[in-house]
């Protein structure tokens, strides 16, 4: 599949020209407020950069401001403060049709009265692409999304997954430098979603120059697709980093609990900074340079890194916790155990057990020191400054 060339500069209508494949996005202190006096802030001073060719996922719960952030790039929401740049161009005051972006939304938004080919050609016609060039570009976009055989159909004759592919083809046909995806898989069932995730990953490999801003509340989508993830909560950016970084070394409690599942235990850093104290027992965990002795902190351990028994089967250093089983869930390839340890809930996800512990049974759990992450108390409430 050929990589997209720079958009053909339409001589008659230069205004909506795409900014080029190596565009990237920059949020420069972008705030969005509503209300007569701007009292409802839905996005608070967002500073964030999407590098050219990068996939950045905006991850957060409902109402976190992630869709608002995307819509400021598209031009459908006007920031009350700050600037949005696409490439080097400040697009804050530009109307949507002059921004040169591709956008795909949750509900496909295909034009029902147009056939698939006309839907895909819509952006090309709107941008005054030479007539002779349009069929080839439409065919290329449909080929790219595996929808070439459906060019003559109406959207209502397609399944949800096929409609979303057409929406993607329509956005890609204009060869945008920036692609905005707003919960594009949310309307699909789990199986289709998984297939589309693989398709999106393939498309990104084929279009390495396109910067993608991907809004989702689904951590799997973010972890699978994104080069980096920006975590938003309550209108603010809480954390930003590579998926591996956020998953293995979360810097805030919110990130730890929203990106994957986490055991979050309140601990105190020992005075000699040689581990932490949890409920009267010492746990060996690496204490970072920025954490003072005696400081309160949160210990984060992923459930799949918590093993059964006081020690790992192969030996080696480990922290041991003892508690009472309160719930056992079978999850196919794993079991999930809920264990009460000194009044704190600890989750463990061992591989499927041949014999499961009984409810109320006293068991021992262990985790390796290097599998635990210490989140300093200063970052547990608001990690925006570190994102």
């Amino acid at each position, binding site marked *: 599949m050929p990589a997209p060339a720079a958009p053909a500069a339409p001589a008659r209508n230069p205004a909506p020209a795409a900014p080029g494949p190596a565009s990237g996005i920059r949020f420069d202190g972008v705030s969005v407020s509503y209300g007569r006096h701007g009292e409802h802030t839905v996005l608070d001073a967002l500073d964030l950069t999407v590098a050219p060719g990068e996939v950045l996922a905006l991850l957060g719960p409902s109402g976190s401001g992630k869709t608002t952030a995307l819509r400021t790039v598209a031009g459908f929401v006007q920031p009350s403060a700050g600037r949005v740049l696409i490439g080097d161009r400040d697009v804050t005051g530009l109307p949507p049709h002059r921004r040169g*972006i591709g956008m795909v*939304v949750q509900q496909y938004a*295909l*034009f*029902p009265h147009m056939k698939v080919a006309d839907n895909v050609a*819509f952006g090309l016609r*709107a941008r005054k692409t030479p007539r002779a060039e349009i069929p080839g570009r439409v065919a290329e976009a449909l080929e790219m999304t595996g929808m070439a055989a459906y060019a003559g159909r109406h959207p209502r004759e397609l399944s949800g997954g096929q409609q979303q592919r057409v929406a993607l083809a329509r*956005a890609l046909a204009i060869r945008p430098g920036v692609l905005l995806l707003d919960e594009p898989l949310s309307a699909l069932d789990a199986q289709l979603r998984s297939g589309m995730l693989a398709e999106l990953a393939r498309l990104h490999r084929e279009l390495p120059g396109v910067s993608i801003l991907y809004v989702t509340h689904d951590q799997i989508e973010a972890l699978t697709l994104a080069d980096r993830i920006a975590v938003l909560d309550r209108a603010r950016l809480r954390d930003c980093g590579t998926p591996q970084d956020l998953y293995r070394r979360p810097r805030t409690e919110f990130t730890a609990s929203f990106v994957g599942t986490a055991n979050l235990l309140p601990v105190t850093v020992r005075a000699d900074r040689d581990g932490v104290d949890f409920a009267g027992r010492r746990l060996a965990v690496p204490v970072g340079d920025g954490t003072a002795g005696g400081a309160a902190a949160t210990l984060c351990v992923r459930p799949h890194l918590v093993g059964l028994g006081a020690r790992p089967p192969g030996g080696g250093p480990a922290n041991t916790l003892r508690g009472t089983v309160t719930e056992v869930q079978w999850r196919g390839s794993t079991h999930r155990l809920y264990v009460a340890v000194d009044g704190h809930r600890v989750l463990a996800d061992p591989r499927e057990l041949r014999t499961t512990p009984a409810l109320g049974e006293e068991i021992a759990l262990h985790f390796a020191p290097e599998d635990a992450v210490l989140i300093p108390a200063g970052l547990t409430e608001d990690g925006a400054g570190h994102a």
Partner: protein
Amino acid sequence: MVAAGAETPAAASPRRPRPRRVAAALWSLPPIAALALVFLYPLALVVWQSVSPEDGGHSTAPYTAVFAEASFREALTNTVLLAAGATAGALLLGLALSLVIAFVPFPGGRALSRFIDLFLAFPSFLITLALLFLYGSAGLANGLWTDVTGAAHGPLDFLHTPWGVLLAEVTYFTPFVMRPLLAAFSQVETGQLEAAASLGARPWRIVRTVILPEALPSLAAGGALVLVLCLNEFGIVLFTGAKDVVTLPMLVYTKALLDGDYTGACVVAVVNITLSVTLYALYRTVMSRTGGGPAFRTGGAHRAGA
């Protein structure tokens, strides 16, 4: 091979059981009887009277006589031209106003939309009276002019001309176009408009290529309704006092009440009804072949009246 008469259960299942069909037929009898009594019977009387010359017997002679009258031909021309003009004006104005109300947020837009509903309930003569108060020879506009300039007469003197009737009909019937259009516009997904804008479409292109095709059936329905109503409009023409603007309904009134020519009045009435029904049938045919086609049906109920 299946023997004759050995109908399989699968083949028989789509047929409705006989008792249910009988019950359905019984249910339909009362409305059909009521319709026949209040509509079809009077209509039949009108048609019967139109082929009953006053000198006795039954023939098409009254039709020949009426068709030969210059006043009838003039009324027919006036009716068609006024209806076509008023429909075109109402469509253009209604479309423009509906687009603004639906897609250009402004304070009071919702209240204006509610007012459209209220406007539909007004009688047509009321609008004509209002126009008379505004633009009539002794109306506000002319009064203001004579007060300011000291002239004996104001410059506005058009309400009793065909243009006055046209203005009144466009004013009165525009909301009849707007109501279905506003309903159709409210169904257009915001996502589609945003997708179109992000793909580089300017507002007018979005209106032309996204909004209008989806609202076309509603536009056609509003236009057809206005056309038929204009063909039969009586109150507006009467209240403007336009003596030279004789339309078919006015001719019916003149012949029946002023000339006492009931047969002639019935002939004109039958022509008027035929014109309306023919145009309505034409509208339904065109809609079923174009705008009302499957491309536009996105899941609505296909019930009678839908």
